[in-house]
């Protein structure tokens, strides 16, 4: 238990003391998480709406693929992405390997199925009369989609929270395609893993606490937004 107490003390000092490295890692993590969550949701929510509301050949198969993608191991995604982004890979020309952009791409690949599958479930949960009523009152496809989406706002907020949770806690792809480079691609999760393996529990714990606080703040912000949108 001593090491835990020591760890908390160290964490407190680092946080209060405004350690530049700790805060740098936290900011990078936040940047990656926000960008990846935004991209995942901007793509995933309309995809989920499409899967939930359109009847087309292969729809069931598409839903199965998306649902299966929920269980993709992060290290496997990281490995495949590494192959694509490495110099000889298909996307090697981008030069993104070991950059924060590579981590974002990996996170998007992991969070996109979450956003699509859960939002499809959320939209399917909306009373079908809402869509029919909007259509019969003359709403075009955009207004109908907006009306249905508004009805599912609580479930969709939970989708965004889940996507953010996946991204912010992800370590496999961040480690493989980010490289855990100090001052460049070191995120909170990769740093925690590194400092734990080096025996620097205080620093690892400090970063872990920041990770928790970050997740807490984002959840509170989403809840506040939900509250404003209620009624």
């Amino acid at each position, binding site marked *: 238990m001593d090491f835990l107490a020591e760890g908390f003390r160290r964490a407190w000092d680092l946080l209060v003391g405004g350690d530049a490295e700790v805060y740098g890692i936290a900011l990078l993590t936040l940047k990656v998480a926000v960008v990846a969550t935004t991209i995942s949701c901007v793509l995933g929510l309309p995809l989920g709406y499409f899967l939930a509301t359109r009847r087309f050949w292969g729809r069931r198969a598409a839903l199965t693929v998306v649902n299966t993608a929920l269980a993709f191991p992060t290290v496997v995604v990281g490995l495949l992405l590494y192959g694509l982004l490495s110099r000889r890979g298909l996307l090697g020309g981008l030069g993104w390997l070991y950059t924060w952009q590579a981590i974002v791409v990996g996170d998007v690949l992991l969070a996109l199925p979450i956003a699509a599958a859960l939002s499809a479930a959320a939209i399917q949960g909306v009373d079908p009369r809402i869509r029919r009523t909007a259509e019969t*009152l*003359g709403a075009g496809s955009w*207004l109908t989609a907006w009306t249905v989406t508004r009805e599912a706002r609580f479930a969709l907020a939970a989708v965004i929270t889940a996507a953010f949770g996946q991204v912010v806690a992800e370590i496999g792809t961040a480690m493989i395609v980010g490289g855990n480079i100090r001052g460049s691609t070191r995120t909170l999760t990769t740093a925690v893993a590194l400092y734990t393996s080096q025996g620097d529990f205080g620093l690892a714990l400090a970063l872990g606490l920041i990770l928790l606080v970050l997740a807490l703040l984002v959840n509170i912000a989403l809840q506040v937004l939900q509250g404003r949108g209620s009624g």
Partner: protein
Amino acid sequence: MVELRGVRHRYQGRVVLDLEQFAVPRGALISVVGHNGAGKSTLLRLLALLEPPTEGQVLLDGQVVPKRPAAALRRRVTLVEQRPILFRGTVYDNLRFGLEARGMGSAAKGIVADVADQLGLTALLGRRRDELSDGEVQRVAVARALAVRPDVLLLDEPASSADRAAAGALYRALVRERAERPIAICVASHQLEDAYRWADDIRALAEGRLSPVTPENLFRVELAPGEGVKQARVGDIDIAVMTDRSGPVVVAVSPTDIFVSREPLASSARNVFKGRVTAMAIERRGAGVHVRADVGGVELVAAITAEAARDLALGPGSPVVFSFKATAVQVF
């Protein structure tokens, strides 16, 4: 005018609607009556262009409607569903919805005030959906549909949750709308009294088909195999039916084929049921009187002349006997 031609609509492989022709002309208020599951809601959904028939055509003012109609075409027809649902927001937001969808937001205030006034909703404009009763939700839904001034207005059981006064206000609003402009209105209902009181024409639907007889006394029954007179169980009574048909069928007795008496008649009629009069109504479109009676938990309607009703001194609660022949029972 909206019209269905040669429609056979299937749901999960089963034919749920089979109509050679069904039309709602402009300026008419048509009532469609029938049991639950008779196909009324499906009929309205097809007329509302919400889904295309699996076979056959929908025509709007003589033009065949494509399987995926453009928004401009869909906007000419509006459906108020059975158990309608309101969008989130206030009653005012709901009444504006269709107008916003048509880019008529600037004119919405006056139109909303007008329809709200017609349906007694002015005091409710600021309320949200969870602050309304079922009857109020229905009125808001009808007002929301009237606000967009459709060419064809379809209503599925619009007064099922309304009290008599609210139902009257609702139908009066429909009649007023029809008087002002050539709108085609089709109301699906199981309340025959409303149909007789307000509709220009009544069509009965049974098992997805238009019934060849008037809409009263329609029952879905199971007939045993064999020939001759069979017993069809309806509620607590057995109706004698002369038919070769068997299995699930619909049986109907025309109200004009029922003899009404105070005492059982010595006659050839195989069906003689004692009961009590529950209601009497003068038919708007004829000189007859509809006598409604509860016979063994089943409601039967007989049509007699006003003179006969007077001679029998019938009134609500009077004991009464209904008689009809097994051959008067139609099977389809």
